[in-house]
């Protein structure tokens, strides 16, 4: 059972580039989340989804977009990368409140 799988694990971007962080879960969970983790700041919610076709903004959505075309997949897109988006990104899924996390994607924007 793979759980929540994130790719890539590491990425370096130049300012202004775009990219998509992929997230897939195989637990048939309706709820999926994207968080970013900055040192000493805990986790901040970027976007979440309560089911296929439904997404909503979290605390820090600016500069990001998401889609949820299937139950399994919840990609996070950065359109114009900025240094402030340097962070570790975690995808998570849930069915009963308890979150299952991926291993994280470390993104550096130079």
């Amino acid at each position, binding site marked *: 059972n793979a759980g929540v799988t994130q790719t890539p694990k590491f990425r370096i971007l130049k300012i202004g580039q775009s990219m998509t962080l992929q997230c897939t879960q195989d637990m048939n969970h309706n709820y999926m989340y994207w968080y970013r983790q900055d040192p000493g700041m*805990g*986790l901040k919610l970027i976007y979440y989804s309560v089911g296929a076709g439904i997404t909503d903004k979290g605390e820090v959505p600016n500069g990001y977009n998401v889609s949820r075309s299937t139950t399994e997949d919840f990609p996070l897109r950065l359109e114009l990368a900025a240094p402030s988006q340097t962070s570790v990104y975690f995808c998570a899924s849930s069915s009963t*409140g308890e*979150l299952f996390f991926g*291993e*994280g994607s470390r993104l550096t924007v130079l």
Partner: protein
Amino acid sequence: AQSVAQPEDQVNVAEGNPLTVKCTYSVSGNPYLFWYVQYPNRGLQFLLKYITGDNLVKGSYGFEAEFNKSQTSFHLKKPSALVSDSALYFCALYNNNDMRFGAGTRLTVKP
């Protein structure tokens, strides 16, 4: 608005001693509270949760947490700390599809 706070950035304990990692919360309505642990370069792992019922909740790896409604707290505890418990611990509050995390407390258990 809901929020969760972890007042200590760092907690140091000696192996074999009891440990407490503090968490306080603010929410309108009944709280759903969680503790997660994060080891280096890994995602967060679920430890335990409080939804309703007994105020003392038991979780993984010998951890437990005490829900105190009057003090709006949900402190994580373990009777006897292990060196392998050293990690980053997060308290979280779930309400209306939104899981909010505290800033984290780094627990160091020294031999």
